[in-house]
């Protein structure tokens, strides 16, 4: 399991690939393209991660920590729902913002 990413890397990769298609990167070779692609994937993951965990209150953070530490069968959907955290919207907005920055104003 890749512990560097919060979001599944394949999903991130798909998203980045679609963005690249809409706005090809100015690169000289495949190696550079791959490097930029990887950096974009990481940046997107960091953005989403920051948005999710930055939205937590102290209490929510503590609760989540408890679930991560002690509950192997935790229902995280339930956790975010009960705490009125619209996780879907947070992730979607983060990705939208990233896409906007990446594309420089083009429609996603």
């Amino acid at each position, binding site marked *: 399991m890749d512990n560097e990413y919060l979001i599944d890397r394949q999903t991130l990769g798909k998203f980045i690939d679609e963005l690249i*298609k809409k706005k090809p990167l100015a690169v000289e070779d495949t190696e550079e393209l791959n490097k930029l692609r990887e950096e974009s994937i990481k940046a997107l993951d960091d953005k989403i991660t920051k948005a999710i965990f930055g939205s937590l209150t102290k209490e929510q953070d503590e609760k989540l920590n408890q679930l991560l530490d002690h509950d192997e069968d935790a229902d995280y959907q339930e956790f975010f729902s009960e705490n009125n955290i619209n996780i*879907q919207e947070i992730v979607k907005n983060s990705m939208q913002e990233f896409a906007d920055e990446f594309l420089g104003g083009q429609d996603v």
Partner: protein
Amino acid sequence: MSNKTGEGFPNTSFSEFDNYRADDNNPEESGKSSSESEKGKYAKLFEEIKVLSEKLNSAEREKELAKSLEKEEALQEEYIYLSETSPEGAQAEEPSPEDNPSGEEPTPDNQEADPNDAEGTAGKAKKCSRIKRFFAGVALAAVFALGIFGARKIVQEGNAAQVEAEDDDDGGEDDDDGGENEDNPETARGIYDGYGERAMYLDSNKGGDYDFANAVEAAEVCNNDEVEMVKYTAGNQVESLADYIANLPEQLQPEGFRGLSILETDQKLESLSPEEYDSVFNYFCGVMDGAFTQEIELEGDYHNAYMRQIDENAGYTHDNMELVSCITHENGTRATEFYWTDDGTANGNIIGSMIVKISHDENGNIDGGCLQVVIPNSDGSRTYIYFDLPDIAPDNPSTPDTPDNPNITPRPKNQTEADENSGASAGIVTPEGQERQVTAEPVADGTHPYNPDTNTYNYIPEEQAGQIGYEVTNDIREIGQESAPITTPGEIVTAEEMVTTQTAPEMVIGTREGVDEANNFDAGATVGTGEVTGDTPSADGSRNTIRENLEQATGNPAANPSNDSQGF
């Protein structure tokens, strides 16, 4: 965002703020910041200034500080105005959504988490497969919601679905695929029966663990009476995962797997390191979590497949088995459709679907079953007809159109229903139009058919086989002919051997037809379903039942099967 107070911010205190404010021209105002919301505003502003000052160089810092000071002065003026015009106004003023979106009074519990703590939690989450799986589904839904992938409209006509392809706006991505896609009938994928070696057990609560179990475990979970069709499996979950991955909508297939056949997918999975494999598996689970489901009833015929020997003299080994396509009849078969939409909602345009036959309990609820995947055709010419598998054997003994005998009949709960549904035993109808079902023989010692410790199988109890309708013949090519025995009666076969002895490894529910009183199957008819054992012609050329063979071999009467015995 949560409300912020002066507490909890590093190097921040109201006394410091008061000192700062005291440097201004309104020293007495520092004592008037009694309202919590105002404190919050100023604290937020101070924090903002602090953050900016740390990040920017001196020139920019001064510029930003100037802006912040202007803002602060504006807030201060507002505060003064409110204080003078309405002493209660400042206190009654509602906080802005930014400061207190929840509308709650700021309390220590509503404090935003310390950034370091949040970072630590994020780090933990990155190591937790369960939460990552959850986020994978969320992210996938977000991708759809953002309209990244092109959508195809599914026009629902009762239980039949015709796909109307729309132009993708993804830059012709499909052109890069060397393999099949659903828009090209010539290369579309089908399903495998029997190639997979492990049944997939889906937890009844979608979003749980999609675990892979062996056939016996799957049958136990599915409750044989409810199972309509089970992919026979033995021990390797990779092939089953390959089946499912290959049948996912292309947009959802893992990176590097798009357009691959099931065989190619299997080979690729086999080549991965354990970490890479886990990554793919977790991704797949996330995809499934992101799917919506609806119950459907299948109609029409399906391309299907089973295994047979390549070289009859080379024994029953995995390498000596090839896949053969056939047609199965699915009218009335219950199934569950997993579908994904372009906007992440249940009613959005469907961008892809996968149909899995899942068992149901008596209330019609999904009963945690695991069954084969079927794919509808894309041209709508025939309901749910799908296409030849790319790596099947060229000799295709597909059957002609048959009477309306469904391949699979939902197992009735009582015999009356069974009588009403007679004729429901057909799996694959032979060219001669005959059908047969044969049963395996009881387990000699009445034990559970699968021994996980030794990874071996015993014969399936007769009653069980009778219920499920196991096919005994080893080779569908030998329709109408006597089939060679697969194993020596009474022999305990290994899981590997069991795999290779499977032709069409599906359990068929239905009545037993074509079976005489002695449990001898009628020559000339076959049901292309999972077979367990063969039988050996006796010395006089007549065909013994396996029970008889067993008794002959051991000299002991075959024991009655245990009622708890299940599975293969």
